[in-house]
């Protein structure tokens, strides 16, 4: 039985549970953070204007952790993480549900996931936001993760094998294959076919799937990431040339590496090499450092740089030449070094907490300045709402490199899964563009969709299981060719099952009958009817059969024809053998010797199964 339980309504921050061959596997545990937008920004200094705004709540946000009662999370055996955005609910599950299983993720996913901000951990000092995790809980959750590499085969209880594959979206991001010897489920979550910094997506290994679960598609299907990067650069240049500052609200890892790489190539040609780039985040240094040591997880170009040996990302050079400076916060060194006009990368992209709040207050009033949104996770209009009215320019260049619908249909054609399963959002055009029939998944047979808090039965039935035949047993088998190319052998063996692995051993030699004089009870002699005899097939040619009978000393044999066959009469032995196409019936007196002799002669003409 294979069912998926859908615990998240957000298609890019999924949380599904798959039951497969008696294992319970959670696929990602994303946390929907869009409700952050319901809160007021957390400014550096209490701002009377902000705290008096109507319509925004200062109340707690326990809606985050509203996991349904659909399934007892303590029964989950393993959690598979596909990328660092999809693990924010991990501390909740590992620390509060009685979960005792293992979490699997790649090393970059864990290291960068550790750095990513979450209102749940970064806003702990603020009494108005509900504090969900303590730092200890986060660390404890991370310590339960077992690190894995791409194409590593991980056995679960001997029954199921899971394998992470490169998904091309972020450093260490993975798709997962969950398979047994006869069934294969692919879990595709947050994949990209664009060549940015991560290792390209491994598509070939997804082939021959019975079911492909597809989540984490692009949130901005109409925007082309390349075009957006171009727009980002030109708007940035325009603002800076006019003496304005550029604010880029972003996560401390991910697309920022690509943006910095673009600027590295762009600023010299645009004559902006003197404009300082500031990257302000408590984890700015770590993020930049970590990006340089995961060469094995990067695309080929970056990998080969390490062989020279040079750092894979050019931001190392930007730092060396003092063009890019990074600070843990706006306090301390930054205030001394701060020069305008400049470009500031800082978080959080929701504009509700982090140093970005300070820059909004500082730069919002001047029309010279520009804020450029690049992260696709939050609606920029809602993010800006509490800051209105704003004089600064707003540019929306969402860069989402995840699969769009054209790429999906290309991928599905390439991979050809038997069934596709996806969130219901992907089976219809987006609500705002209901006429765009191209903005949905189109495949044959139609994708099966699921929605939050729903349980879906997956459409395949298991028919076979792997079993090993011991060499001694294999040697004793006598194959016979039934049809050209097809051979059969009857197998009688002892089944051993251990750790979900099955093994067939040769049957034990019959024990020597004990020659003890002790009288046995009648019931001791009752044969074990569980010793199965083979089935028989074939038919008996009467003439040859009679010849054989004669050869074996039977005489006075009479053959009568019947409607369906023949009757062979052995008059002397008072025995009758009725032979038809598919049956033989031996009727005789209670003479075991005779019966066994006749049986063996009949069996000579039949095949055993």
């Amino acid at each position, binding site marked *: 039985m294979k069912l998926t339980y859908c615990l998240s309504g957000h298609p890019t921050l999924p949380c599904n549970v798959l039951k497969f061959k008696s294992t319970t596997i959670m696929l990602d545990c994303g946390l929907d953070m869009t409700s952050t937008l319901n809160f007021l920004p957390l400014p550096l200094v209490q701002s009377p204007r902000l705290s008096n705004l109507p319509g925004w709540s200062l109340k707690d946000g326990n809606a985050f952790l509203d996991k349904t009662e659909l399934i007892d999370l303590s029964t989950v055996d393993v959690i598979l993480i596909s990328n660092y955005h999809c693990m924010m609910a991990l501390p909740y599950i590992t620390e509060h549900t009685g979960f005792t299983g293992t979490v699997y993720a790649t090393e970059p996913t864990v290291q960068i996931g550790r750095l990513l901000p979450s209102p749940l951990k970064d806003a702990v000092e603020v009494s108005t936001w509900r504090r969900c995790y303590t730092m200890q809980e986060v660390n404890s959750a991370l310590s339960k993760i077992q690190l894995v590499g791409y*194409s590593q085969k991980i056995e679960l209880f001997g029954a199921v094998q899971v394998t992470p594959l490169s998904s091309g979206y972020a450093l260490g991001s993975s798709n997962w294959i969950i398979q047994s*010897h006869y069934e294969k489920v692919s879990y595709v979550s947050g994949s990209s076919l664009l060549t940015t910094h991560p290792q390209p997506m491994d598509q070939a290994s997804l082939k021959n799937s019975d079911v492909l679960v597809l989540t984490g598609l692009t949130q901005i299907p109409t925007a082309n990431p390349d075009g957006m990067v171009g727009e980002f650069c030109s708007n940035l240049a325009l603002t800076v040339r006019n003496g304005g500052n550029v604010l880029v609200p972003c996560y401390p890892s991910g697309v920022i590496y690509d943006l910095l790489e673009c600027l590295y190539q762009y600023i010299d040609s645009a004559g902006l090499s003197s404009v300082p780039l500031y990257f302000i985040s408590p984890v700015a240094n770590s993020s930049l450092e970590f990006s340089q040591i995961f060469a094995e997880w990067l695309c080929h170009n970056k990998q080969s740089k390490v062989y020279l040996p*040079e750092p894979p990302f050019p931001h190392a050079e930007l730092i060396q030449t003092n063009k890019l400076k990074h600070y843990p916060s706006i306090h301390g060194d930054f205030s001394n070094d701060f020069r305008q006009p400049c470009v500031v990368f800082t978080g959080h992209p929701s504009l509700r907490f982090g140093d970005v709040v300070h820059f909004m207050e500082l730069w919002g009033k001047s029309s010279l300045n520009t804020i450029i949104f690049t992260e696709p996770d939050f609606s920029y209009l809602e993010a800006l709402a509490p800051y209105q009215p704003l004089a600064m320019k707003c540019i929306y260049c969402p860069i989402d490199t995840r699969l769009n619908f054209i790429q999906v249909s290309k991928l599905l054609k390439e991979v050809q899964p038997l069934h596709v399963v996806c969130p219901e959002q992907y089976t219809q055009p987006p609500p705002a563009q209901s006429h765009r029939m191209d903005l949905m998944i189109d495949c044959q047979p139609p994708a099966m969709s699921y929605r939050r808090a729903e349980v879906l039965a997956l459409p395949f039935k298991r028919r076979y299981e792997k079993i090993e035949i011991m060499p001694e047993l294999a040697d004793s*088998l006598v194959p016979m060719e039934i049809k050209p190319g097809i051979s059969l052998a009857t197998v009688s063996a*002892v089944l051993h099952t251990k750790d979900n692995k099955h093994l067939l051993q040769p049957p034990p030699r019959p024990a020597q009958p004990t020659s003890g004089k002790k009288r046995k009870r009648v019931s001791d002699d009752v044969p074990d009817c569980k010793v199965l005899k083979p089935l028989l097939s074939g038919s008996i040619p009467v003439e040859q059969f009679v010849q054989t009978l004669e050869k074996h000393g039977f005489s006075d044999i009479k053959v009568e024809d019947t409607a369906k066959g023949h009757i062979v009469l052995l008059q002397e032995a008072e025995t009758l053998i009725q032979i038809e196409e598919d049956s*033989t019936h031996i009727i*005789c007196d*209670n003479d075991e010797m005779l019966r066994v002799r006749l049986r063996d002669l009949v069996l000579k003409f039949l095949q055993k199964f």
Partner: protein
Amino acid sequence: MPEIRVTPLGAGQDVGRSCILVSIAGKNVMLDCGMHMGFNDDRRFPDFSYITQNGRLTDFLDCVIISHFHLDHCGALPYFSEMVGYDGPIYMTHPTQAICPILLEDYRKIAVDKKGEANFFTSQMIKDCMKKVVAVHLHQTVQVDDELEIKAYYAGHVLGAAMFQIKVGSESVVYTGDYNMTPDRHLGAAWIDKCRPNLLITESTYATTIRDSKRCRERDFLKKVHETVERGGKVLIPVFALGRAQELCILLETFWERMNLKVPIYFSTGLTEKANHYYKLFIPWTNQKIRKTFVQRNMFEFKHIKAFDRAFADNPGPMVSGGIAALNHPPVVFATPGMLHAGQSLQIFRKWAGNEKNMVIMPGYCVQGTVGHKILSGQRKLEMEGRQVLEVKMQVEYMSFSAHADAKGIMQLVGQAEPESVLLVHGEAKKMEFLKQKIEQELRVSCYMPANGETVTLPTSPSIPVGISLGLLKREMAQGLLPEAKKPRLLHGTLIMKDSNFRLVSSEQALKELGLAEHQLRFTCRVHLHDTRKEQEMALRVYSHLKSVLKDHCVQHLPDGSVTVESILIQAAAPSEDPGTKVLLVSWTYQDEELGSFLTSLLKKGRQLTQPPPLPSPSWTEPGLHVSTVGALSEQTLQVPSLGTETMCHVPTQAAVSS
């Protein structure tokens, strides 16, 4: 009989020129392709003509695996692939792929430029050779072809060193390369899971050594360096550019910092600085501590250790006190290569050897024939090129910093992997002998130590994977819930073999799939009894009797008067001629033969039937009851009803018998 064959072309009862051929389930794999540092002639490379005399190597080898970047493991690779000719895949880890070509180029330069050797591989050949390399990640299962897969495990030893599992079906071999079972200052310890290979091929460099604690060795090392410097001597530490060098640099760097020493430490070549870059970029391959702290402080950025200019080597003793002056007088120098067989370390050694104040510390293993090996074995007069004799007056110290597992570590790894047998390579014959005994006695695992060119053949008995239909398996497993220890239950099925697809299904399914009809074989035996009672009454008695005897079986009395035991049918009939004789017709199929024939004998043995206690009817005890056979065939028709299926499959379908 399937077998695994192993032939070392190098490193068989020897250190150097590692190259081991493995044949497993029809696949041929070459493990490492090294050079021998003790030879300068043909013997420095493995004899690849062993693989094939005339064909191309690509046709004979499925893949080549390089365990790490040391030249005694990869030094012959360009010769092998470009000059002998091999175009198949070469597998190694990312750091090995990064560093290997640099060491090869270094090796080539020394051989060609310094020694003027002709017919050596060229720079272009190194590049072409590296194009055939496929990089692997740790623990990644690499599918070489449909059947052959390889997997790398962390080996410590040097940056990027890996052990490899080579697997075909259920047969596997693990090759350790060089490994270290204790973490050091820059690398972690080797680790492998309980993968239970048929064969573990392990290095055995330190087969007889049990090393004391690392801390003691480190303290000794620092003390010796410090004392020599204090008394105005120079210290030469011959190392290979990558590996021990970084460990010792970290060690000296921290010591210098702690002691606030000002004397400079130098590194002999430009290569080394570059080498440190590799360590910085491959941080995930280093030990836990460095990985954790690298953001705050990258351990491979040294403050006290600087690049070295060759001219310094000529300067006399150090002037420790003078700050800048000291720069001109290097007291501690790391120089390559590590075995003093060529290059800068040998040059410096020749210049400093005459002064007894100086010291050379050999931190690693030296291969026979090298200057390093000679001075370590006590030789003090060395014959150099051109019949020149060099007298060694400087102190010679040996400190085992080689990151090889010692005897304890090797035993530990064998214990971790749980192989069926062990094969020793990369060690000296005498020491191997000792370890072989130890492994055979303590771990009860057979152990081999072939010499170069000698083949070890291990028979294997791989089990055969087939697909079993879930219905058949579940039926068996459900019955397995009631285990009967005395009588092992048999699973019966039919194996269908079509091409290479093997499936085990129930016999019924096999018949159905092949479009064959089942042939029913049925027996009906007449048991004659002298009895005057009516048939129905007789049947009832038979029923009660069987019910009491056959407690474990399903005995039923059907409405039509017949009795069934499981699927065996018993009917009572009266032959017309003799009212005093009754016939019991017992009918069963071939599949129920045992029980059927048992029942007839049970019914025949009237005496046994008569025995108390469970018999309800006294009439059975009458001595007049006996069994005989009657001549004439009955005219009756025996209807054999079809019975419920339950879990058993061998159920007779309806059969009509006219008699």
